[in-house]
């Protein structure tokens, strides 16, 4: 849902004059500003639920955290972090979310862009198609995770039925959730299925804002459909491409509910992703410090990825202008 929600941030990213600059010129910043009354109630909740736990998460990651009041928590420095770095399951979890990212990010982008291109111009039934492809986005992760688990069942699952009885691609059904890679296929399939509608909507908006004159000019220069796509469409929507990539990469690291409900990280921790693993460490083994350390490393990784992508995006933009 966070991903869906973020769709609307793209718009606000346009440059604006500093907020209320005119007023600001007249009224000096003051501790008696009425703004505090507006900000205080919301910010109190926000601080309690978000800011304080963020600080707390960091402190806990440095402790052998104890849940009982009688036994105080021990400060153990970076031990939790070092433990994680030498924990093969942690690395496997990272690798799994890497696989998920490598499959679902391009998958959602290519399919979403294909749908957006098909929808760009007038067409009978256009809005109906748009709605149908968007519907998976608004479904609940819990419901569709259970649904996909059912579709990928070994006995009586729709996917195996299509593979064996309908298309005869295989003699016997695949035991999807019994192996790491086949289980990841099912998890990735759900990720792509649920995300295409979102990328489609964002791409569609971007495509419709490309001026027609650019295409007309390309046509005059004799550019065919493919050349137009490569030299007009893609460069024109590169900001959108960057935005979508960043959001999807963050989303890929955040995968949790689907893994938790489809495989529970199993068999034998084969399909753990960082979030399911940290949840298990915290709430099954009550190792809150270790879970927090994993959480912190993951956040750092996401921040790093976003920063690198922003850099690359800026560079690409500069080159395109130059």
């Amino acid at each position, binding site marked *: 849902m*966070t991903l869906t929600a973020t*769709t*609307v*941030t*793209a*718009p*606000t990213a*346009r440059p604006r004059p500093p*907020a209320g600059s005119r*007023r600001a010129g007249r009224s000096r*910043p003051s*501790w008696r*500003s009425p*703004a*505090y009354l*507006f900000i205080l*109630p*919301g*910010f109190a*909740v*926000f601080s*309690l*639920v*978000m*800011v*304080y*736990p963020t600080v707390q998460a960091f402190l*806990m990651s440095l402790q052998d955290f104890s849940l009982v009041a009688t036994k105080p928590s021990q400060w153990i420095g970076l031990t939790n972090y070092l433990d994680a770095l030498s924990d093969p399951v942690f690395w496997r979890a990272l690798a799994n979310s890497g696989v998920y990212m490598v499959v679902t990010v391009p998958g959602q982008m290519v*399919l979403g862009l294909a749908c957006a291109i*098909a929808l760009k111009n007038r067409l009978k039934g256009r809005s109906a*198609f748009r709605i*149908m*492809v*968007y*519907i*998976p986005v*608004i*479904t*609940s*992760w819990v*419901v569709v995770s*259970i*649904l996909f688990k059912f*579709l990928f069942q070994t006995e009586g699952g729709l996917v195996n*039925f299509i593979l064996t009885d309908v298309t005869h691609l295989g003699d016997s059904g695949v035991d999807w959730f019994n192996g790491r890679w086949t289980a990841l296929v099912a998890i990735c399939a759900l990720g792509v*299925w649920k995300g*295409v509608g979102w990328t489609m*909507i964002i791409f569609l*908006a971007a495509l419709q*804002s490309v001026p027609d004159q650019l295409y007309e000019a390309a046509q005059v220069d004799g550019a065919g459909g493919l050349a137009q796509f490569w030299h007009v469409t893609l460069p024109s929507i590169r900001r*959108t491409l960057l935005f979508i990539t960043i959001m999807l990469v963050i989303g890929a690291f*955040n995968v949790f509910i689907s893994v938790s*409900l489809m495989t529970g990280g199993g068999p034998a921790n084969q399909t753990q992703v960082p*979030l399911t693993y*940290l949840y298990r460490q*915290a709430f099954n083994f009550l190792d809150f410090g270790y879970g*927090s350390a994993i*959480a912190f490393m993951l956040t750092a990784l996401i*921040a790093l990825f*976003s920063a690198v992508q922003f850099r690359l995006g800026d560079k690409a933009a500069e080159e395109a202008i130059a």
Partner: protein
Amino acid sequence: MTTRHRTRPHTTVRASQRRRRRWLTAGRYLVLSLASLVSLGPLVYLLLVSSRENAYSLTSPADLLTGRHSLANYRQAWIAGDLAQSFLNSIVLAVGTTGLVVLLGSMMAYGFARFRFPGRGLLFALIVVELMVPSIMLIIPQFILARDLHLLDSRWGLLLVYVGTNLAFNTFLLRGFFAGVPVELEESMRIDGAGPWRRYWQLMLPLAKPALATCAIFSFLGAWDEYVWTMTIISSPDKRTLPLTIALFSGAHQTNWGLTFAASAIALIPVLVVFFCCQRQFVGGITAGALKS
């Protein structure tokens, strides 16, 4: 292209163009039909299973086309699964979250957009930073916090965290919107003697209706679908929300998918209703916004 124009008579060029366009349209329909089929197929399948009597005896998807279909599973899930209570919890929590997030978020957004005060940069930076923090990363300290506040296994604990986690994004979104409203409008109201609260309530909020609607929809859906926090703190059956009930249901009635999917369909209905009622805000709002970038 230009050479073709010169060498061929005009009519054939037009005909070939028309033919090409027809192929293009066919291709577009093909892509969109496939995408729609794949998008809706699993959900249609869910409805087929949920309405199939004796769904536990299903051995092959082909059986779905035979046998009796009725609402029996829905009735049974509603009664046996105690869905009514979960449904009520979900509705109350989603509506409460939406109201609080829209109110508190728009107040914060107005404060940030229209005033300068000491600490403004720092406070807003905190909001932006928290936008990037994955929500599950905070679940461990939030759990400790809820324990210390005696909010474990409590619906107030759910509401507090639902509101808190949705505030950052909505404040960010609305601040952008408010900042774009011309200052002159507010100035003239100020000259007429309207205080900040009246300007917020009578000018900014009505102007921001479309943005508020977007916030409301996403807060509602966020709360309606929330699962992880609920699963972490709720243990009493009468305090569960729909996603938790459905997840537990599928675990307990492993073989009876008909019941699980009937419960799932019940949870999907309000979402689809909101979606179809507020399509403008959904798709249109996103589209209109993205055009500006």
